[in-house]
């Protein structure tokens, strides 16, 4: 099962099913069907995307880590500033 879940073709299938349900809901006006569109869409977003596009996920992670390290540095600079100010007083 785990093997199937980590294949690109499985998630492509999930995308097609989500698309199919969405189209069916539009044609039949059975809007409640969209609950399944939501579930499949969210599943793909949180689990399938990284499997289908590992390179992009890696790139995103690197970018986020870089951004976070800058924000951490800034926080550190800010706390230094407050500490120095207190010391001067």
């Amino acid at each position, binding site marked *: 099962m785990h093997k199937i879940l980590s294949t690109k073709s499985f*998630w*492509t299938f*999930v*995308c097609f099913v*989500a*698309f199919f349900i*969405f*189209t069916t*809901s*539009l044609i039949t006006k059975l*809007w*409640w069907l*969209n*609950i399944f*569109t*939501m*579930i*499949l*869409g*969210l599943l*793909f*977003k949180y689990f*399938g*995307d990284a499997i*289908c*596009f590992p*390179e*992009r996920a890696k*790139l995103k992670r690197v*970018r*986020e880590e*870089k*951004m*976070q390290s*800058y*924000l951490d*540095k*800034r926080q550190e*600079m*800010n706390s*230094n*500033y407050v500490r*120095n*100010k207190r010391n001067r007083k």
Partner: protein
Amino acid sequence: MDWNNIVQAILGVGSQVLIPILIIILGLIFGMKPSKAILSGLYLATGFIGMSMAINQLTTAVSPAAKALATHTSINLPAVDFGWPGAAAITWAWPMAFVFFAVEIIINLGMLLANLTKTLNADMWNVWGIALTAYMVYSISGSLPWAFVAAGIQIIISLKLGDMWAEEIKTDFGLVGVTTTHIEAFTATIMFPVNWVMNYIPVFNKRWDARDLKKKIGILSEPVVMGAIIGLILALAGRYSVGDALNLAVTVGAVMAIFPPMAKFFMDALTPFGTTMSNFMKKHVKGREFVIGLDWPILGQSTELWVTMVLMIPISIIYAAILPGNKVLPIAGVINYCIGVGGLLLTGGNLLRMIVLGIIYEPLFLYGATYFSGVFTKLATSTGAAKVPKGSEVTWSSIEAPDLRFLMAQAGRLNWIAIVGLIVLLVLFVLLYQYMKKNPLPGKRYEKLEKKTSTPAGAAK
């Protein structure tokens, strides 16, 4: 041979067919295997069809709620908003519209040969936007040559926008070798000064992407939930029954959920295409890079884009009700792509900046729509392509580049203030272009800003 009919027949198939066919042809030219080129084209078509269906459904579902809200709050605005589909339909019915195909191709090829751009625009379906500008300028200024010049200016801007966004689309969206040439991203130009001021306000220089927002407000930041809540509020404000309100909430939520799977098809289509193209250029044209200009839905994978556009729905309705002199209630154009796409690419997905910029600039679109309502009505009536209710007008509430179109139209009447305004706007565009070229990656841009805004700490050291 009636060229107009031939072009209209080709365009009649829509962008979801036209662009994939162009991508298949270009893929084959760049040396893709026929099976891969066809698969790329089919995936792209699936992505475009899915995206268009979702966007149309969003508009179709939200419009009646907006109308009901207006009725129950006694907002009575004379101009009917027919959105971009209406604007496109009446533009293609203008007999001269097809000429701008040739203008677009000639300018694009000329600029490519002169090495003035690296963008090859495949988004031929959106040539109607250029024809619309020409018609607006012609209608207001009465000068056909100036209308062609204005169209030319818009084409050059579109191609430079394509150049400008290419790097960001590659690194932030993972789409190699493609860009968006859509003129709606020109909104970034008018947003640029305010966005620049935001660089010096610490709160705007923190992480404000969807992931960060999730840490702060949890599940509420999920576009599916946010869409459902906005849908529910709109429906209840429009006095829908509970059942209908829940239906609207589920529909808006589902539209938000369908975007990531649709974006997958874009990636599947464009990744092999972009890689092949890049290899081709490395092999045959050393030192030159090409990107293919496509329609904006290729950016549909961005959560920030949809969150901003959905949040702007109630804001635009409130603006329509309170702005003095406004004549249009956003209905078919209630989803303002200009603010979403322009803000996304300018800020690199900084949600707080996108929403604040949206709130600041939304009136520009409503006033633009009000100003051009006469032109739209005249074109709709003369071509008969759209029905105009008796005693009322038609317009497009989220009209693309209203500032550029207004200034070009007025400049054609030799209005000196407009001429100066147009020059200022174009200078602003050049400044934005240089700014984006200097710091093409939003991540890097914010790194720099972090240093700037933390100057007091540095001084204390």
